[in-house]
């Protein structure tokens, strides 16, 4: 009879322990997923900024809001320590590959000779060098703003576009501002470029790169017919000379000079954007932890209740131990230690479960969620801190239960 009762008690104790570990594992898995994926995406974006080949960005308030982009590029190039000033106009156009129907493409108009130096080490390998887009300065066609010069009609297409639509170098490709093929202009594909991995999916994977003046004429952003400004661009990416890239003072000085040239545009350093991104990432991390704290609190309260229940069921055993003379602090240490072991097991299981969840999302989920999961970063220090935090908090739960153990009336427990 004693054996049966003892076995039942043992089974209940095991079940309680398993439930406590499961509760904490569930509570820990959530922050593991959030922190690893969130941190991975932020880290990827930060790496993009840090690996960019340019250090400053000029931007206007609205879309395509920078005017006189060619002239502004020249003025910025005239400043000391500036190596390249690359205006970029991004417009969605339509392509008609091999006589087929319209295919939306994100077209980027650039000045080839300025665009190349603004590519970072990770990106430069994706593009042919030098860019086979004819006139590297884009001045011939631009012709001092008259757009009367001969256009090269050359275009580079992205590798996903080329693969999907069977376009190769040397092919003729119709490009137009609208889905009407009759208004499209024939371009020759002079090269194919790779698409860098993006943090949030394949946006812009179907892309084309062509001279800025060509795109401006095609879309009406040359003479202001489609925009409130002439010779329009979205941004101007500015690279400083190699010797100045590690000198924040020089970069800030260039920024101030550009700002003086165009006080009505925003001029920001990528380092500032990186700082803002890091701040935003820190806020998000705090939010993730706050969100996770709800689950962690529930898990720890459950652990505390399990420990208190264990103390109640072990009331007689504790009474016997104490009657024999085992010190109260030793009993308390046992209860707290048991809580810490359960919490550590739960935290370890939670980390494992979180990892498996992220891997599963990265393998089986679709689109942007999958892309984000693939960027997940499991930082050992963060996981250790999380585990240590859970164990630390479990000491409170254990402390609560150990108080109950120490308050047991010995005479009552042994009756």
């Amino acid at each position, binding site marked *: 009879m*004693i*054996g*049966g*009762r*003892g076995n039942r*008690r*043992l089974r209940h104790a095991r079940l309680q322990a398993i439930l406590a570990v499961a509760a904490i594992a569930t509570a820990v898995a959530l922050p593991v997923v959030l922190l690893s994926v969130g941190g991975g995406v932020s880290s990827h974006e930060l790496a993009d900024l840090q690996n960019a080949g340019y250090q400053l960005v000029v931007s206007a308030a609205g879309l395509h809001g920078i005017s006189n982009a060619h002239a502004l590029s020249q003025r910025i190039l005239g400043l000391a320590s500036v190596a390249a000033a690359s205006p970029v106009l991004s417009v969605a156009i339509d392509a008609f590959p091999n006589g087929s129907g319209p295919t939306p493409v994100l077209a980027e108009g650039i000045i080839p000779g300025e665009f190349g130096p603004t590519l970072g080490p990770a990106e430069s390998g994706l593009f042919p060098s030098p860019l086979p887009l004819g006139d590297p300065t884009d001045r011939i066609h631009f012709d001092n703003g008259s757009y009367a010069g001969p256009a090269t009609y050359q275009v580079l297409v992205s590798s996903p576009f080329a693969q999907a639509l069977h376009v190769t170098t040397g092919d003729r490709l119709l490009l137009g501002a609208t889905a009407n093929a009759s208004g499209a202009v024939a371009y020759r594909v002079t090269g194919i470029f790779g698409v860098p991995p993006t943090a949030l999916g394949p946006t812009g994977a179907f892309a084309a790169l062509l001279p800025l003046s060509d795109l401006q004429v095609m879309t009406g952003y040359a003479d202001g017919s489609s925009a409130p400004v002439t010779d329009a661009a979205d941004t101007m990416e500015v690279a400083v000379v190699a010797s100045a890239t590690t000198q924040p003072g020089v970069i800030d000085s260039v920024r101030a000079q550009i700002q003086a040239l165009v006080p009505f545009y925003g001029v920001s350093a990528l380092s500032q954007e990186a700082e803002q991104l890091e701040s935003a990432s820190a806020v998000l991390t705090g939010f993730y932890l706050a969100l996770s704290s709800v689950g962690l609190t529930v898990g720890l309260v459950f652990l505390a209740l399990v420990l208190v229940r264990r103390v109640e069921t072990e009331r*007689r*055993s504790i009474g*016997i*131990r*104490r*009657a*024999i*003379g*085992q*010190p*109260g*602090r*030793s009993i308390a240490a046992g209860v707290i230690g048991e809580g810490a072991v359960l919490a550590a097991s739960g935290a370890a299981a939670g980390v494992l479960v979180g990892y498996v969840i992220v891997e599963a999302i990265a393998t089986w989920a679709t689109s942007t969620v999958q892309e984000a999961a693939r960027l997940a970063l499991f930082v050992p220090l963060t996981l250790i801190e999380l585990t240590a935090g859970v164990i630390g908090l479990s000491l409170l739960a254990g402390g609560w239960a150990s108080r109950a153990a120490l308050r047991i009336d*010995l*005479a009552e427990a*042994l*009756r």
Partner: protein
Amino acid sequence: MTSSRAPGLELVGVERTYAPGEADEVRALRGVDLAVAPGEFVSLEGPSGCGKTTLLNLIGLLDAPTAGEVRWEGRSVGGRTDRERSRLRLEGVGFIFQRFYLLPSLTARENVELPMRALGLGRALRQARASELLSEVGLSGRERSYPHQLSGGEEQRVAVARALANQPRLLLADEPTGELDRVNTEGILNLLEHVRRERDATLLLVTHNPSVARRARRHLTLEDGRITSDVREA
């Protein structure tokens, strides 16, 4: 049989009241005075609810008196802190309970090792002493048996071995044969007498059973929280 060796056990005006001042107040002990010489074998009899177990708990420092003093070797110990009382119990008292109170998840040897673990003895020494004690109570070869694998008599023998593990000067037995048959009762009583003589320990035994009580040399009777009879055999 008495011994000149300390300690002496002394109770002076000991009272124990539960829920004092409340409607359900219970006066379990009412001014108990008692002196027990070292090495004495004392039986404590009385009807149910007369305060026997309460008295034993106070003597063994499992409980503290509401009033009066419990003295060991002339030192007042009843009012000590919980921690101090734990230490005194560990170093000086061996308990034997009616229901054995072995820990079901531990083997016989591990149960016997418990007080030695609390004393901080090393594993090898603990195991050797526990095996020795189990052999002394006639359980050689049952070291690895769990309580549910032992008979009632064997369980109580393990409990006696555990009570002796800290080499106590005071053995307190609360109805140690209450759940045993006649043969096992005899065996346990013989064993208790033997260890008391061998170790020159004081043995205080609570019992309802007159034949068990007859084994003692001094007989106390407790009624309604008071000692009403104290008979020493010649």
